[in-house]
């Protein structure tokens, strides 16, 4: 018998070597208690959370929690069925209405996760003779959407408008084209030049899909994302998003003004062949989305947090993923995985949780300590966080 697991041996060995040094496993952290969107108990210690996607701090919002409890009582714990069979409850339609109102768009379709939203929409709308033109640093769910379908895949250099335009011009003019972009790229926290990219895509006859997972609720006047902030949301054909970040629960969606959009409900396999979200989840999502419409003050405070952490980390001597803060994600670039893991552990001992990100999730083989801020991090907490980075950085010789 050939052991099908032998292909994982190099990774198993790398992990063992790293853990033999006595390091805590960065990919096995358990939160024993969660006190708030910004604080949890890990290994018995009070820990500030700086590595969640809880950008707008909605997970403990009293209205959101109450809506979930009420739905549990009134509709039960789950739907046990597909959206197109017995899995569409009033709550699912209410959630889609909340999305249509939030984005001011005609159509909204809720998937069970954001991953499935990309998987479903991308694989379904781009057929065999169509082209998908995508940023090289696209999220795994976008690549997997390409792999599930059978379109021709054309990647271009990250955030490079010129590279995108050149490729569009080389493609047959009569072929169907879908350009796939992200508002905020989650590894470095950098924003796409959507204004120019959407323009060149339209000039070359392509439809445009933008994944706004990491910008919803925070970026743009109404929190609709980078496309809104850069004034091109009306030219974007499809926006993909998630409930597992600013919205504070789980689920994914696509919103669009395409007149034939609703047909996707019948032809999109990752929508049809899976169970719909539990009633409590869509109830919390709908309540949260409606509250995010009027969260200008929280958006302003989150920007303040992002700017302060970026400036503070830079002053301490850390190398950051972007020259300016562009989103709620601040990526600290580590020289290698060993140092990154040591720094991650030192921060945890200080009482701070950040994400350790490594290849293949990261671009250019980088190891990153990814910090994502929350609108509910107080000014004092950001100060505390900077103090912890200073201490851990010196203890691991990352800074002098």
């Amino acid at each position, binding site marked *: 018998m050939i052991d099908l697991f032998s292909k994982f041996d190099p990774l198993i060995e790398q992990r063992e070597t790293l853990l033999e040094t006595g390091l805590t496993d960065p990919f096995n952290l358990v939160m024993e208690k969660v006190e708030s969107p910004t604080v949890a108990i890990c290994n018995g210690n009070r820990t500030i959370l700086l590595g969640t996607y809880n950008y707008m701090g909605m997970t403990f919002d009293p209205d959101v929690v109450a809506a979930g409890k009420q739905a549990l009582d009134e509709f039960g714990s789950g739907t046990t069925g597909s959206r197109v069979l017995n899995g569409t409850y009033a709550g699912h339609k209410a959630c889609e209405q909340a999305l249509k109102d939030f984005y001011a768009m005609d159509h909204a379709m809720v998937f069970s996760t954001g991953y499935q939203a990309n998987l479903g929409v991308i694989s379904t709308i781009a057929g065999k003779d169509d*082209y998908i033109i995508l940023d*090289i640093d696209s999220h795994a769910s976008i690549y997997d959407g*390409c792999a599930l379908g059978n379109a*021709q*895949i*054309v*990647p*271009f*250099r990250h955030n490079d408008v010129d*590279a995108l335009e*050149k*490729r569009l011009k*080389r*493609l047959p003019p009569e072929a169907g084209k879908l350009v796939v972009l992200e508002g905020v790229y989650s590894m470095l926290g950098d924003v796409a030049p959507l204004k120019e990219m959407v323009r060149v895509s339209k000039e070359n006859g392509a439809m445009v899909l933008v994944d706004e997972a990491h910008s919803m609720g925070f970026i743009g006047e109404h929190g609709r994302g980078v496309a809104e902030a850069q004034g091109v949301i009306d030219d974007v054909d499809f926006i993909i998003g998630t409930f597992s970040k600013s919205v504070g629960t789980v689920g994914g969606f696509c919103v669009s003004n395409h007149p034939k959009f609703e047909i996707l409900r019948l032809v999109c396999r990752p929508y049809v062949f899976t169970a719909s979200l539990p009633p409590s989840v869509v109830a919390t999502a709908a309540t949260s989305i409606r509250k995010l419409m009027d969260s200008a003050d929280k958006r302003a405070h989150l920007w303040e947090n992002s700017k302060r952490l970026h400036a503070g980390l830079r002053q301490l001597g850390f190398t950051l993923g972007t020259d300016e803060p562009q989103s709620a994600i601040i990526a600290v670039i580590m020289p290698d995985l060993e140092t990154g893991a040591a720094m991650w552990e030192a921060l945890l001992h200080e009482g701070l949780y950040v994400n350790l990100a490594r290849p*293949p999730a990261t*671009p*250019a*083989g980088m190891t990153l300590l990814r910090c994502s801020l929350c609108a509910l991090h107080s000014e004092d907490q950001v100060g505390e966080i900077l103090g912890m980075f200073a201490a851990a950085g010196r203890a691991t010789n990352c800074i002098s």
Partner: protein
Amino acid sequence: MPDRAEISAKTLELIEPFNKKGVAVTEATRFAQDLEWDSLTVLDFVANVEDDFDVIITMNMQAEIETVGQLIDALVKLTA
């Protein structure tokens, strides 16, 4: 329309900056096994080849290309 020899010479020239191991490159050289390129190196290299020859090499086509010779063959077809 460039001939095969020209395409071959240009391809070898484009490989060199990424040939960190100093491998003696022939048409039988394999990108993954012999040049030991990871996926990121491949993406960078392909972008350069595409811009130089003014063609598109889709990821679907890339999946079929293992050796330098296969890439040259593909470029001959794409530039024809």
